Structures are given as structure tokens and as C-alpha cells.
């Protein structure tokens, strides 16, 4: 009864090419992409330590206090040091001779002049810092003019150390590129592995003439065919489980938030693989030439328009109907938003495709003569 399933397993672990494509290749992909994307998540270029010299022209006490409080906040950042200078011409000269990274002139009322240095990345950082300052100062001025009595508490709130006005909450929605690619990689492996695996199965049995022996036996052909479909399970189970487990264990990839969600995701991906396998088994029965020759280019195209290789790719009218895209978006709905409706719909479709393909395949399999 389980002979075919055992054989399906043998076919994976004993054939070096299969072993590579089903076990090693996905793990390698996760590994490569994992390292690559972890690197992409870091900033492109580090900001070198910088010294910013500034001169305060304003005499307004409140404003000077505000500037001091603002600059004080940077004392914790080692990369940036602020140095006050009396003579701004000397500051400009220092920037020009690259002794300082930038020069800031605080003018009256709450104006800021920035003198950039030669490092474009540092210039960007300086601009960002003082854009924030200018907005804040603008807001404070507005409050001072419209509701002066609220000014003290606002200033207190801004500068009162622990967060102040800015509250930072982690809603758990933060996703890395790897979380995206881990899902699309499984989808890719389904469309590369299950398609060829399904089609090659009966094709190779025809080519090696072993199908003749199977068909000559008194075993019921429908029964044989159903077992053959079930025998696709080891491959589909392994290819999905390996990527999920390796990516979680080694790269801490985040799939669904709950155990149930992850189980559902895995079930959907395995069923999708089984449906694809069963569909392509039919191809393996009717093609006269090696099915991989047409499957590979087809799979690449489908995956390409489905945004599997890059989330930027989307062709309206195609992408939203592509099975790979539907599986991916159901997976993201589940992993990112914790919604499982799409996932359940995909599962239902996959089961339907699996059953229909199995029935159609079994009918074809009962035909006489195709094995010889």
C-alpha cells in the first residue's frame, strides 16, 4: 500500500539531482538570500563621525535655551559632536578646510543657515537634523502666538527626556525583505519543483518502461494512480518544510504570528504543491518529450509576472490572476495582517484542483497502450 510513497521518498533522497533541487537548493537559496537581504536591511553607507560647529546670533533667552536643549539631545550620539564658535567666518573656514563637517548659524528669529561640507551623506544627515529642528521651532512659535499660556507645558513635553511627544510602539507589523522572500521562495520552489516533479514522475516511468510492469500487474489502475498522486507528498512536504524551518531557525524569518497561522500557511503551501503536482502528472502522461524542457521557461514567466522574483513586478490583468500571485498574496494576508480568509479560499481551490486533476489523470491512466 505504501510502496509508491516509499518510492517517492527514495526518488528524492537517492537521486542526486532531486536531492539537490528539493533539499539543498531551497536551503541554499534561503541561505544566500538571507545573507544578502540581511545586508540590504542595513543602511547603504555608514555616516562618518562628524563635528558640527555653530554660532548663535540670537539674543532671545528662550530661543537660546531651546537651541541648547535641542543640541543637548545629541550629546548621547557619539558620531555627532556640536562645538560652539564665536566667529562664524572661522567656522566657514574650518568647513572649507574640512576641519569641520558643517557650519550652522542660528539667526533671529528662529532662522537656521547651514553651510555644507564636502561629504554628501553627512550633508544629508545635517539637513535632516535641522529640518526636524525647524519644524519643531515653527510649531513652538505658532503656539507662542496663538496660545502662549500653553507654551511652557509644550516645551516641557518636548524636552522631558523619555520620549516626550514621540511615543514609539511596536505593533509587530515590521517586516524585513527576508520575510517577503521566504514566502515567495516557497512559492517558487512549488512552481519549479512540484511542476517538474509531477510531470517527470510518469514520464520517467514510461521512459524506463517500469510503467509497463505496473500496468501488467493485476492492481487496480485507479488505485495505482491515486497512490501515485499521494506519493508526491514527500516531495511537497519536504520542499516547503525545509525552507520554513531553515529560514526560521537560521534567519529568524517571521511568518504568521500564531502557531495556528503557521500551520495554516504550511498546509496551504503543501496543498498548493500537491495540486500543482497532480496537474502536471497529467502532462507526464501525454508528452512525448522531456516535460522539464517546457516547464522551466513557463514557470519562470509565471513567477516573474507574479512578483515572485521582485515585489516591484506587477502586470495588471495578468498578475492578479496568476496562481503564484494568489498564493503569495494569501500568504502575506496571513503573515502580515493575520487574516486567513484568502488562505482558506486558496486551500479550497487547491483541494478542488487536486481532486479534479486526480480524477482526470486516473481516467487517462486507465487508457490502454500508453505505457508501451
Amino acid at each position: 500500500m505504501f510502496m509508491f510513497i516509499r518510492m517517492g521518498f527514495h526518488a528524492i533522497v537517492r537521486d542526486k539531482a532531486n536531492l539537490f533541487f528539493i533539499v539543498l537548493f531551497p536551503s541554499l537559496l534561503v541561505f544566500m538570500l538571507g545573507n544578502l537581504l540581511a545586508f540590504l536591511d542595513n543602511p547603504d553607507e555608514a555616516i562618518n563621525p562628524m563635528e558640527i560647529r555653530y554660532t548663535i546670533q540670537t539674543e532671545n533667552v528662550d530661543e537660546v535655551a531651546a537651541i541648547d536643549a535641542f543640541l543637548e539631545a545629541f550629546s548621547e550620539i557619539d558620531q555627532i559632536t556640536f562645538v560652539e564658535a564665536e566667529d562664524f567666518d572661522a567656522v566657514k573656514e574650518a568647513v572649507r578646510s574640512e576641519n569641520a563637517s558643517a557650519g550652522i548659524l542660528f539667526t533671529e528669529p528662529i532662522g537656521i543657515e547651514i553651510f555644507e561640507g564636502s561629504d554628501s551623506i553627512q550633508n544629508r544627515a545635517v539637513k535632516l537634523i535641522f529640518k526636524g529642528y525647524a519644524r519643531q521651532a515653527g510649531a513652538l512659535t505658532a503656539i507662542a502666538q496663538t496660545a502662549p499660556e500653553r507654551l511652557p507645558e509644550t516645551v516641557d513635553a518636548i524636552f522631558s527626556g523619555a520620549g516626550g511627544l514621540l511615543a514609539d510602539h511596536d505593533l509587530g507589523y515590521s517586516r524585513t525583505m527576508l520575510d517577503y522572500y521566504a514566502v515567495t521562495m516557497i512559492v517558487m520552489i512549488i512552481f519549479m519543483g512540484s511542476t517538474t516533479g509531477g510531470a517527470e514522475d510518469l514520464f520517467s516511468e514510461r521512459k524506463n518502461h517500469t510503467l509497463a510492469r505496473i500496468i501488467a500487474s493485476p492492481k487496480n489502475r485507479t488505485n495505482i494512480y491515486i497512490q501515485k498522486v499521494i506519493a508526491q507528498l514527500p516531495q511537497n512536504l519536504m520542499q516547503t518544510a525545509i525552507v520554513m524551518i531553515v529560514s526560521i531557525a537560521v534567519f529568524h524569518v517571521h511568518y504568521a504570528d500564531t502557531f495556528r497561522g503557521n500551520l495554516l500557511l504550511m498546509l496551504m503551501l503543501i496543498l498548493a504543491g500537491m495540486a500543482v503536482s497532480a496537474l502536471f502528472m497529467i502532462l507526464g502522461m501525454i508528452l512525448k518529450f522531456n516535460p522539464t524542457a517546457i516547464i522551466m521557461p513557463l514557470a519562470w514567466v509565471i513567477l516573474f509576472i507574479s512578483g515572485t522574483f521582485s515585489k516591484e513586478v506587477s502586470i495588471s490583468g495578468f498578475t492578479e490572476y496568476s496562481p503564484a500571485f494568489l498564493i503569495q498574496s494569501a500568504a502575506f494576508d496571513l503573515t502580515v495582517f493575520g487574516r486567513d480568509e484568502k488562505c482558506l479560499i486558496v486551500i479550497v481551490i487547491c483541494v478542488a484542483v487536486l481532486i479534479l486533476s486526480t480524477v482526470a489523470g486516473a481516467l487517462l491512466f486507465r487508457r490502454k497502450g500508453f505505457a508501451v
Partner: protein
Amino acid sequence: MTDFVNVENLTKKYGDLIAVDNLSFTVKEGEIFGFLGPNGAGKSTTLNVISTLIGYDSGNITVCGYDMAKDERKIKALIGLVPQDVAVYENMSAYENVAFFASLYGLSGTALKAAANEALEFVGLSEHRKLRTSKMSGGMKRRLNIACGIAHKPKLIVMDEPTVGVDAQSREHIMSSIRTLRSGGATIIYTSHYMPEVQEICDRIAIIDKGRLAAIGTKEELLEIITDVKTIYITCEFPPDQKESTELSVDRVLDDLKAVPDVRYVSFDPDESRFKIDVTLGSDAVTPLLRIFMDAGARIHEVQNEEPNLETTFLALTGRELR
């Protein structure tokens, strides 16, 4: 002996091609039945129909009393198939292959183990039972191919050219195992286009050509059909001082030989510089033959007489050489 396989008016077409043409024969229980014919004669097609692999256009087939049209599965259970092309899984061991195919016939547990081991023992692969098929030699694969077809102890063993491409030692082993299977009670249908094999082990032989039955019977019966033919081999040389080339001389001699009334068939083997001439037995054709050679200026080295054999029988029946 009772009829074990009965084929009546079997016809199988592939499009316009009639691969098997109104073929009828019976195979008796417990015999080794040989199917002899050149490539493309329809041997495999006939065997594939009997082993239920392919359908047929018309005819009646019964095996062990079961009608193919009604009791196909009962027939399947009786048959052990040894296909023309080695049919085994490359990534499985010898034992796993045999056990897998035997399990398709309902064997399981210790019975399956015993049957698989016995079959491997039988073909002399016991020592290599754990060897991956992909690592086997051609001869070993052929023997494994046989083991996979017989492990379930079928009553009818259908063997399609089981010795193609094997070394002499494996061939001997296969020949003797076929005999052992027969003494174990199995009926065997065996095809080959290698004459000596068929002559050696078959109890009865059917000669087919272009899908049609040319003759059927025991080896002796077949020889009797055409006792009127014998073969004369004449090895000779055309001296180089002749006016015309050797090829022209050979062609002219061949034409002259064909014109002799009792000559049935002539051919020339340039490698051995030998003419092969089939003549009607009893007629004294040798003298006119030798005259032709002398007229052509040939220097005769050797004249050999060969008594009738299956090769000449086949030739006489089909006008074609077997290989």
C-alpha cells in the same frame, strides 16, 4: 498437454501499419514456446497484447481458460512479464526492485521477502541484493529484469528478448534459468531473433514475419516442412589478372547462380569471400554450380555442405535472413 494460451485471429494495427496480422497459435501448458522473427516482425506487439499492456483490434485470446475480453485481471495475475527493455528503477537496489514489483501481485510481509530473495538467488544476484541498479552492468540488469518478472511465481512467463546485449556467461545463466522455470511448472513464451537460443531451449517454435505466422511446430516438424532445402557454401577467389573487377565478377556469378533451376536463394559474404547457396535437397545442382564458378575464372578454395537448420527454414519461409 492442454492449451494454456490460445490466440485466435489476432490483429493489431498502428494506424495504417498492421503490426500483427490475423495471427493464430496455441501455447501448451508447461512448454517453452519460442517466437522467432526478424526485427519488426510483430513479436513484441503480440507479447504485449498477451500480457495486457496494449489493446488489439480483433481476435480472441484466452489464457488458462480466462477470456481476455472479460477476465483481464485474472489473466494479469497469472502472468510474469520480462519486457524487451530493461524495466527497473535505477535508484533502487536489486532487492527493492524485485520486492516492489512482487508486491504489485499481492505479496507482502515474510512471503514477499522470501519470494524476492528466491528470485534474486535464482538469477544469481543474491550477493548484489543491496546494490543500486544504476551501478549494475548490462548483464546484471538483464538478470534483475528477469527476477522482477518471476518473483511472484507466475504460471505464464512472457519473456521478450531477455538475452539482448548480454555477455556469453549471463546468456548461459539465463538459458539454464529458463529451463529451471519450466521444470518448476511454468509455461514460457520466449522471443528472440537469435536462432541458436531458440533452437536450444524451445519445445515449440512459431516463426512470424510481417505480423503473419509463417510456420509453427517443434524444431523437428519445422525442419520437416522444408527438408527439401540444403545450403552449400563455396569459398573462392577471383585472380587479379582478370579483365573485369571482382565486384562485377561476383555480380555476374550471383546472377548466373539464380538462373539455375534448383537454386532457391544466393548471397555473397565479401569478408570471407564466400557464396551461400540454398538448393533443393536431392537435386544434383552442385555440378552446374561449380561450372558457373569455373566459367567465371574463379579459383575455388572450399565447398561446404550444410544440412537443413532453422536458419535455412526461416530463409525458405520468408525469403529473408534472420539478422
